[in-house]
């Protein structure tokens, strides 16, 4: 019984003497080591960007998706273990459908975020389950306007102007803070997100960029950014990166 956890990290139902739940912290680490995911709330919508490492040259592009529409007005981006994330996405879809069926109205973003957080939190309460190794960025655009939420493995849900999770989160967050989000349109936001993710990804390893948004231009529906716009954004991001390198 010696080492890092010294026996207090075996179960999610055990606190350490200084009041922490190690299993929950480990789940957070699983997220923090994954690909970077960025979300920003612009003046007319929300943009999500996911950096997906390409595991093999033989991989067909566009497989292993990590952004999902929940309903017309909500979408999610997965960070961390994507299989775990998909489980949460499924639950979110169920919650949204059930809410609509019962109340006759679309589930508001903040209600959904809280319900999802409660679901995620359940897996931090019993010894026979493990927490999700995934965090989710949720973009919604309803009567409250565009909103961005982050749901983490511990069962927390927070609303952000912009945030990042995964490996490159630190520098991504400082980059986001420099943006003038109240003036930025989603069209511009897509380019900024692409820039941030390309900057953060400093290794030579290849990666795929998945961009999704919900804004006035997408008719307030959660959709993947149109291929031409996404390609242009990536091109601009690369050009900006080269410029930085040269100077």
């Amino acid at each position: 019984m010696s080492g890092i956890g010294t026996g207090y990290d075996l179960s999610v139902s055990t606190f350490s003497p200084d009041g922490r739940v190690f299993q929950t912290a480990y789940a957070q680490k699983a997220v923090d080591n994954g690909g970077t995911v960025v979300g920003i709330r612009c003046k007319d919508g929300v943009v999500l960007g996911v950096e997906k490492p390409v595991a093999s040259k033989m991989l067909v592009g566009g497989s292993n998706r990590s952004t999902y529409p929940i309903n017309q007005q909500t979408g999610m981006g997965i960070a961390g273990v994507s299989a775990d994330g998909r489980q949460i996405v499924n639950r979110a879809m169920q919650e949204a459908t059930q809410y609509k069926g019962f109340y006759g109205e679309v589930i508001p973003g903040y209600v959904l975020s809280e319900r999802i957080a409660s679901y995620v939190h359940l897996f931090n309460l019993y010894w026979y389950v493990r927490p999700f190794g995934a965090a989710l960025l949720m973009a919604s655009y309803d009567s409250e306007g565009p909103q961005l939420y982050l749901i983490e493995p511990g069962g927390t849900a927070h609303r952000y102007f912009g945030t990042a999770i995964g490996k490159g989160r630190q520098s991504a967050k400082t980059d986001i803070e420099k943006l003038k989000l109240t003036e930025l349109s989603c069209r511009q936001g897509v380019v900024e997100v692409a820039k941030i993710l390309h900057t953060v990804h400093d290794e030579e390893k290849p990666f795929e960029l998945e961009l999704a948004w919900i804004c006035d231009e997408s008719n307030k529906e959660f959709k993947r950014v149109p291929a031409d716009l996404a390609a242009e954004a990536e091109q601009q991001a690369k050009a900006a990166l080269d410029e930085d390198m040269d100077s």
Partner: protein
Amino acid sequence: MFKAALHSGSGKPRRRATVSSPHKPAGRKLLEWRGRIDQHFGYGSSEASRSLYLEDGGQYAALLQAELEQPVSLGTTIIAASYAGGVVLGADSRTTTGNYIANRVTDKITPLAENVYICRSGSAADTQAISAYVQWFLQQHAVDLDRHVSVKTAAKLAQTMVYQNKNMLQAGLIIAGWDKQGGGSVHTVPLGGTLLQVPYSIGGSGSAYITGLCDKLWRPHMTQQECHEFVVKAVTHAMARDGSSGGCIRTVTISKDGVKRDFLPHTRVPIAYGEMQQPMSVGA
């Protein structure tokens, strides 16, 4: 059990039960005995009235009992209409058990939430139960949302209850109110549990008599005052024609400025064509 059908368009023969009709033998018999009950309870000596009460071998008691055993029904006229910026709900105030008026000042316009009200027709018990459930659901929901509930949600909850229990319920509902998203809106839930959003809706046994009138008088973008006048006029006419509607007229006006209740006592209800003038009374 025999239940009185009160909603317009039900069209079933059992409807006759709520229409008060002095032509029927049962009605005449009741009138005949009504004098006697006055004597019995008010004027006769207890010994004399006791013998009076019993001299028919309990026939009168049985007759009255039969009336009171009828289900309590809102043989009704209800209405809700939207105007520019809100809604006006209106209803008569008669509740009957068979031919007997169990309550002549009933309030058939019940709050579901701060900003949503419901007009009830059909069985008093059923519609009270539904309203109570919806009130409870909406209270929970308002806490969940941390703001006012929408009229649409209130209507949806009522509709779900009516639809899922359609074989047990006798309820024709009109749900109306004001919310930020939809402004003033009217939703109607008739017998089978359909849910419709409409510019205005009428319901209850009295509504059959005023369909044409309402189609003629209702206009979009009325002012609050015009809409209120429309509602009162519609209920007045229905009360004149429908034997199961009567008493006074209650209205509720809902807009972004809040909720306002109005009450028109039966002495002030304008007389319809062919009706006799109210007898003069000291108070009026």
